[in-house]
């Protein structure tokens, strides 16, 4: 009975999602707090909290389940991720909204992973948990468990890049490598040929991603066009670059991949790096 009721609600909710989101690809990426509240009320969404489990236990968005980023990273194969989805009661058609409390970077990495294993219907909550709470929106302490669901495995290799592809990108036209770490990290060392788009540029205090028009302008300023093929990377596990991945998609880039193992792997493999040692820029920091 329960599952039947759930299924009908889910169907209805999907139409809400698609009505609001299908007009352009841009808005698939983030779900506004208002829409999420509606979906929660209609029991038509799986909300995923990627913060540490302890934080989840203290308080979380109503109906959310806990899938901490660390668990996603530990289950480092598409098969295991699908299993994780199934255990969380997420079927192929369940709309998923992911949130964090780290300006969207952790949520982005998890959302990207879900999309990578074939759960395209994953979006990011536009704001952080702290903001959600400050708006006075619904939270709870109850640990939510949902019946196991079936999920198929359809790995989307179009959104993933390994070091080999990164290395090749350098010499190919219209391929752009985007480093989303902070400026000083980038200046110190980066993958040769990369362009810096620090994650700090991508969001505001209210929203994890800026208005698409602004993102588009930033891209245009840097000469990144919608038709370029972009690979994003960051320092270690692809969180900051996960956010950049979604930001650039929001800016209209069609072909974009995440080099999820990022600079950490690149360095470990002894690949070439570009360094800049002629300025003591770290000494400008006030702390």
């Amino acid at each position, binding site marked *: 009975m329960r599952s039947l009721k759930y299924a009908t609600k889910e169907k209805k909710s999907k139409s809400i999602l698609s009505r609001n989101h299908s007009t352009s690809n841009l808005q698939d990426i983030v779900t506004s707090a208002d829409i999420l509240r509606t979906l929660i009320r209609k029991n038509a969404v799986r909300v995923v909290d990627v913060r540490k489990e302890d934080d989840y236990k203290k308080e979380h968005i109503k109906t959310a389940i806990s899938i901490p980023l660390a668990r996603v990273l530990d289950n480092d194969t598409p098969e295991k991720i699908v299993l994780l989805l199934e255990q969380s009661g997420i079927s192929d058609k369940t709309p998923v909204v992911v949130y964090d409390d780290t300006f969207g970077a952790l949520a982005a990495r998890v959302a990207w992973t879900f999309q990578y294993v074939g759960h395209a219907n994953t979006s990011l909550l536009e704001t952080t948990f702290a903001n959600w709470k400050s708006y006075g929106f619904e939270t709870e302490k109850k640990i939510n468990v949902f019946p196991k669901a079936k999920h198929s495995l359809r790995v989307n290799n179009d959104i993933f890049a390994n070091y080999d592809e990164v290395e090749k990108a350098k010499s190919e036209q219209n391929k752009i490598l985007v480093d989303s770490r*902070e*400026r*000083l990290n980038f*200046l110190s060392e980066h993958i040769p040929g990369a362009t*810096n788009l*620090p994650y*700090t*540029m991508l969001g505001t205090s209210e929203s994890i991603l800026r208005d698409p028009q602004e993102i588009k*302008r*930033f891209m245009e*300023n*840097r*000469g990144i066009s919608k038709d370029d093929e972009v690979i994003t990377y960051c320092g270690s596990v692809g969180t900051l670059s996960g956010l950049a991945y979604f930001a650039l998609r929001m800016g209209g880039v069609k072909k974009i991949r995440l080099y999820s193992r990022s600079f950490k792997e690149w360095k470990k493999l002894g690949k070439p790096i570009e360094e*800049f*040692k*002629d*300025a*003591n*820029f*770290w*000494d*400008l*920091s*006030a*702390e």
Partner: protein
Amino acid sequence: MKKEVLNYPDKKHFYPKSNPRWGKEEETEIFGQNVKLFRRGKMSEDDFRRFRLQHGAYGSRLQQNYSMIRIKVPSGEVTPEQLQKIATLSEAFSIGSAHVSTRQNIQLHWVQLEDVSEVMRGLVEVGLTTREACGNTVRNVMCSHFAGVCPDEAFDSTPYAMATARFFLRNPVCQNLPRKFKINFACCSNHGLVRIADIGLIPMKKDGAIGFKIYLGGGLGAASFIGYLLEEFTPEERLVSTCMAAVRLFDRLGNRENMARNRMRYLVNEMGWEKFQKLVIKERTNVEMTISLETLNRYKVESEGPNIRQLSNGRKLPLINEKVDINSDPYKRWIHSNVIPQKQNGYFVVFVTLGAGDITSNQLRSLAKTIQTYSGEGCARNTPNQNFAVRFVKARDLPEFYNELAKTGLANPGALTMSSAVGCSGTTSCNLAITNSHRLAKEIQSKFIELGFDTEDDLRDSTIKISGCPNSCGQHEIATIGFYGGASRIDGTMTPTYTMMFGGKDGEDGVLGKSVMRVPAKRVISTIIKIIDIYRQERNTNESLAMWVSKLIKGVPNTNRTAKNLDDIKTALMETTSLPSPQDDPDAYMDYGNDVKFSAKTARGECAA
């Protein structure tokens, strides 16, 4: 009575300053477009550089793809809203911190050229501009941070400084001068950099008339000069024509060939002061006889009026003069070295200590909040000592003010003492720098606070200022003990060194320091400490360090003392300044912030471009 309550700078009665509208949205658009043209090869590098500098963006150290954005802050006056915006912009596009310069600008470093227009866009929203912050223009017009609150001032010169800044900004008369041009206003003869500017002005009254004492032709640099007094009194009506006359003469007669000698001070000194003086007086009459109303209307002092408030009489603050030492309560120590009374009874200027002018975005936000909460004028001023002065603070609010600052690490003592060393950006971002003057200034500050030098009143009127090259952005020539960076071969090894200068001073009786000796970068701190040791042994009663140093430089003999003159001091410092062999102590031959062998790398400076 009621009026007093309304004007009391209480949390509930915050009067936001109106948006000063220095910036223009169109300029940000044009900047963005020109970056694209330049990148596509449709604008030459030279043309683009000229354009970029006119809009306040310098190339960064050995990295032309990054800019240092210089935000012009006329009179140093910033509002909480502006500070918050700078915090956000720095986080997004720069390095998460901002930097207070020695000419009341606020600088954002390592901004990608492609993002400069975005930063400008944000600045315009809060009324700020970067226009003519660099290039061969009238640079940021400075005004003493005590103007309006100084007990010794004839009147508040701030509105005049603001009106002058507005008069010259985007004024066709000064868009392509032979070289940059600097105008500084003082409040009184003690506070202000009037003798080291192209034009320096001190407000004064004569027979009830308002006017200025105007100095011309000063300036610091590879060769420095102290400005000359134009005339005993220049009435306020002639301020703008006098400034314009100087600018026009410079534009006409300045050296456009030799970049190293093209500031107005060279023109003045090559021609001779008396001749230049006569030309200025004559040119001023020309200006007055030919100026159009339209031009004259650019200058409006009344619209720059200060927020005049009826102030209540507050409590006195005996703590300030109470002796403190290194073991004193941190709050007392802070009060002693960071707070001074205003001419308005019961109100205080609170200085916020920074390290060589660096402030993080979080700290900027916290500072904005404290200004909003505690300043009766709703703004603060950044100062040439690379810190912030928050004015019109009530005595009873000081403990809370201190606690608020402490939360973000802004409550260090020593802002008004020699422990707050000034340091230009040096090798952290500047093309011309040879040494890491910036880090050295911060190292000095933390060492001196640790040693409690901020608590010693006899050291208080002394200053330490450091530049990373001879070009004086760190204003080392007006410091009690100043340093400028260079490279020397010591024991066969290239070593970062500083030339030490003694006895400089700002204000109307400003003097330039005299060069004493070279000191390896890693020996600067121990050398200053040694100098203080010698001073303590050799001083006469009631003789401050600054007085003692000045006496040495003037050659006044210390007859009954061991160190009789400057040479004796140099000899006494020999041991401290010498280095062991490079094999025994390789670190001593490196600069701060580096773990590799020192080499002096510089690129073409853009100051002169």
